C-alpha cells in the first residue's frame, strides 16, 4: 500500500531534507483525472486508484526507464491550484518545487476546467508536458480536441493518453524526457505573440491588491475561453445509460432509494462473500442454504490439523514449547479458535477468519469506488453528517475505516478544516470497527444469533453518532460545507481492480500477520509468567464492577492494543454469557486503537489533538461499557 501507508513517513523526509528526493518527473493535475493510473502505467508500480476526487492523499515514488536511463517519477495528490486549500493538495504543491519536469495531467472531457492550473504551472518555468487523459471518453462524449493547436497555444507538448489502457503513455514519457532541462518555449498570449506569463501569485501575497488579482484572474479566464473555443469542438451525442443512472442517483426521491439499496446490498454482499470463503455456505442469516465443500475452515481442518496434532504429540502437552506453538488443547484436541498457539490460532485468526472478510470487504468497496458512486452517497448523507459537525464527504474516510482504520484516518486529509479532520479521525478510531475486528465479531457474536450481532453494530453506530454530536458542540473551529465535483459513472477496469485488491489484501497480510504473531506470543508469555493476575487485580473494579466482565477479560483488552482481531478471538475461551460477549465486543472495539492506528492518529492530528482523541476514547469506553452492561442486565 505504497500510497496509503507510507507517504507520511516520506513526507517527513521531504520536509526535513528536501534536496534528497530525486524527482525527475512529477505528475500534477486536478483530483480524479487519472494521475495514479497513469503513474502505474509509467512505472509499473501498483497504486490505489478510484473514481472519486481525493483517492491519493500522499505521494508515491516509482521509476521509469527511458533510453537505458532510470528516471524517478512521483505521483502527487490532486490539486486545483497552486494555492492549496486542503492538506492533500498541500502535499502536491510542496512537491512542485522539487520537480525537474512536470507532467500536467488534464481531463480531456472537461478541458476548460483544467487549463487554469495548466497556466499557473506554466508560470513556474519548468519543463512541462500536458497529458490529455481520458481522450477515449472525450471521443465517446462527442468532444474533439486538436492537440496540435493546443500545444501551439500553450507552448508545451500535448500528448493524448488513455491511462486505463496505456494508450499514449510511451509517447508521454518520451515527450517529458526528450527536451533538455530548460524552460519551455515562451508561452504565447492570445494575440499569438510570444509574451510574458500572466503573473499569478504563487502564495497569497497580502501586498497584491485584491482588484489587481481579480483583474489577472479575469484575464486568465478569458484566455482559457479563447484557447478552448479554438481547439475544442463539441459534437452532439446520444444520452447514454450511464448518464441516465447519473440522473437517477442524484434525484431527490429515487436517489434516496438508490442510496439505501446500495448500502444494504453492500453489507449483504460483504457478508455473503465472506461467509462463503470461510465456510463454503451460501446464505445471509442463520443456516446457509447450500454448503459447498470449500472454505478456509475446512482447509485448516483437513490439511493443517492432522499435522499440528502430530506436532502436539511430539512436544508433549505440558511443555513450554507446546504452549507457545500449539497452545491449550480443548478436550484433547486442537481448537483453532480457542487453543491460542502461534501455529494454531496464530495462523487461523488472520488467514482463516479475517482474510476472507478483508477480501470481500475490499472487493465491494473497490467496486463502489471505481464506479464513482461514493461522492453521490456523500451527497445523500450530507444532512446527517451535519449533525456531527461534518459534511457528506467525511463518509469516504469513514467507509475506508471500515476496512482498516489506518487508511481511514489518513483519508481525512481530503477534509478542509482541522476541526473536521479531528472529529472524523476520532470517530473512526473509536467507533468504526475495521474489517478484521468485524470478521471476528461476526464469527464470535454471530454464533449467538443475529440479534446480538446487530446489537453490537447498533451500539457502535449510536456511539459514533453521540460522540459526533458532542464533539460538534465542544470543538471550535471552521466547519466548511460540502463542495464536491461528482465524477461521471465509469465501468471499473478489471486490471485496476485487481491491482487495488492486491495492494490491500497483500498489505493486510504483510502488516497484520507479524503483529498477530507478536500478540499471541505476548498472550502466552503473560499466561506462563502469570503477569495477568497482577493486572487483573488492579483493573478489577472497572472490568468486573462497571463492565460486568470476568477479571481475565483484561488480557484481551491489553492485547487489543496490538491487534483487535486477536483480542476478540481471546474472548472465545472465556465462556462468556451472551450479554458479556456483547459488552466485551463493544468495549474491545472502542478501547485503545491498535498500535498502527495509534501511530497514524498522532501523525495526522499532531500531539494535542491526538491526546484529545485518546481522552474522548477513554471517557466513551467507560461510559458506554458501563451503560451497555447495566442496560442489558436490566433488560434480561
Amino acid at each position, binding site marked *: 500500500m505504497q500510497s496509503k501507508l507510507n507517504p507520511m513517513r516520506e513526507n517527513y523526509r521531504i520536509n526535513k531534507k528536501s534536496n534528497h528526493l530525486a524527482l525527475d518527473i512529477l505528475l500534477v493535475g486536478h483530483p480524479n483525472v487519472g494521475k495514479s493510473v497513469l503513474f502505474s502505467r509509467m512505472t509499473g508500480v501498483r497504486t490505489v486508484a478510484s473514481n472519486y476526487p481525493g483517492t491519493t492523499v500522499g505521494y508515491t515514488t516509482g521509476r521509469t526507464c527511458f533510453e537505458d536511463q532510470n528516471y524517478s517519477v512521483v505521483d502527487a495528490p490532486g490539486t486545483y491550484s497552486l494555492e492549496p486549500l486542503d492538506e492533500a493538495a498541500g502535499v502536491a504543491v510542496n512537491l512542485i518545487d522539487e520537480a525537474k519536469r512536470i507532467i500536467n495531467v488534464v481531463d480531456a472531457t*472537461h478541458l476548460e476546467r483544467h487549463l487554469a492550473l495548466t497556466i499557473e504551472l506554466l508560470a513556474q518555468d519548468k519543463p512541462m508536458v500536458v497529458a490529455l487523459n481520458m481522450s477515449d471518453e472525450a471521443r465517446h462524449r462527442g468532444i474533439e480536441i486538436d492537440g496540435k493547436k493546443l500545444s501551439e497555444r500553450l507552448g508545451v507538448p500535448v500528448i493524448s493518453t488513455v491511462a486505463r489502457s496505456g494508450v499514449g503513455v510511451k509517447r508521454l514519457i518520451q515527450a517529458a524526457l526528450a527536451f533538455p532541462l530548460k524552460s519551455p518555449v515562451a508561452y504565447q498570449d492570445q494575440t499569438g505573440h510570444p509574451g510574458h506569463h500572466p503573473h499569478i501569485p504563487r502564495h497569497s501575497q497580502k501586498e497584491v491588491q485584491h482588484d489587481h488579482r481579480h483583474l489577472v484572474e479575469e484575464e486568465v479566464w478569458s484566455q482559457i475561453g479563447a484557447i478552448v473555443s479554438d481547439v475544442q469542438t463539441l459534437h452532439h451525442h446520444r444520452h447514454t445509460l450511464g448518464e441516465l443512472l447519473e440522473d437517477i442517483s442524484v434525484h*431527490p426521491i429515487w*436517489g434516496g432509494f438508490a442510496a439505501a439499496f446500495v448500502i444494504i446490498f453492500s453489507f449483504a454482499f460483504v457478508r455473503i462473500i465472506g461467509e462463503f470463503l470461510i465456510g463454503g455456505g451460501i446464505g445471509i442469516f442463520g443456516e446457509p442454504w447450500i454448503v459447498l465443500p470449500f472454505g478456509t475452515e475446512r482447509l485448516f481442518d483437513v490439511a493443517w490439523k492432522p499435522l499440528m496434532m502430530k506436532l502436539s504429540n511430539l512436544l508433549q502437552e505440558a511443555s513450554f514449547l507446546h504452549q507457545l506453538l500449539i497452545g491449550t488443547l480443548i478436550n484433547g484436541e486442537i481448537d483453532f479458535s480457542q487453543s491460542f498457539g502461534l501455529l494454531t490460532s496464530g495462523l487461523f485468526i488472520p488467514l482463516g477468519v479475517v482474510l476472507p472478510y478483508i477480501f470481500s470487504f475490499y472487493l465491494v468497496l473497490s467496486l463502489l469506488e471505481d464506479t464513482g458512486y461514493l461522492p453521490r452517497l456523500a451527497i445523500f448523507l*450530507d444532512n446527517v453528517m451535519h449533525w456531527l459537525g461534518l459534511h457528506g464527504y467525511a463518509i469516504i474516510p469513514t467507509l475506508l475505516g471500515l476496512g482498516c482504520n489506518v487508511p481511514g484516518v489518513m483519508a481525512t486529509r481530503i477534509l478542509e478544516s482541522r476541526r473536521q479532520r479531528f472529529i472524523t479521525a476520532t470517530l473512526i478510531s473509536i467507533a468504526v470497527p475495521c474489517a478484521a475486528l468485524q470478521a471476528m465479531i461476526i464469527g464470535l457474536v454471530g454464533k449467538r444469533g443475529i440479534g446480538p450481532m446487530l446489537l453490537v453494530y447498533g451500539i457502535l453506530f449510536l456511539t459514533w453518532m453521540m460522540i459526533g454530536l458532542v464533539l460538534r458542540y465542544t470543538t471550535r473551529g471552521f466547519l466548511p460545507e*460540502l*463542495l464536491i465535483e461528482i465524477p461521471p459513472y465509469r465501468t471499473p477496469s478489471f486490471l485496476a481492480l485487481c491491482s487495488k485488491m492486491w495492494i490491500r489484501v497483500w498489505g493486510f497480510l504483510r502488516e497484520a500477520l507479524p503483529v498477530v504473531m507478536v500478540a499471541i506470543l505476548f498472550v502466552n508469555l503473560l499466561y506462563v509468567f502469570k503477569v495477568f493476575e497482577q493486572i487483573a487485580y488492579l483493573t478489577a473494579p472497572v472490568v468486573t464492577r462497571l463492565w460486568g466482565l470476568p477479571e481475565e477479560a483484561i488480557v484481551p483488552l491489553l492485547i487489543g492494543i496490538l491487534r483487535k482481531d486477536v483480542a476478540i478471538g481471546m474472548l472465545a475461551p472465556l465462556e462468556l454469557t451472551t450479554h458479556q460477549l456483547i459488552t466485551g465486543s463493544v468495549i474491545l472495539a472502542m478501547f485503545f486503537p491498535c498500535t498502527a492506528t495509534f501511530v497514524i492518529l498522532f501523525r495526522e492530528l499532531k500531539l494535542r489533538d491526538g491526546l484529545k482523541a485518546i481522552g474522548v476514547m477513554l471517557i466513551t469506553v467507560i461510559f458506554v461499557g458501563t451503560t451497555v452492561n447495566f442496560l442489558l442486565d436490566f433488560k434480561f
Partner: protein
Amino acid sequence: MTEKLLTELSSDQEAEIVTIDGGWIMQARLKELGIVAGRKVKKISRVGAMGPVIILVNRAQVAVGAGMASRIAVKVKSNA
C-alpha cells in the same frame, strides 16, 4: 431578468452567477470548481429541502452545500 439565490432555482433551470457572498476561502473553493461570477450554471437537483444543491457548471456536476448555495446569487432569463 430576475435575481434569485442558487437554492431557489427549480430543477433544470439555467442561470448565470451574479455574486458570491462569502469569505476568501469560500470564494477560492468555489473558484477551484469553476463557480465564479459570470459563469452559466444549470440546477440538476437538490437532495431534500435542506440538502446540497447539484448544479452543472462547465459541463461537470458539482454538489454545493446548502449554506454555500444560499449565498450565491444568480440571475435567471425570462419569467420563471
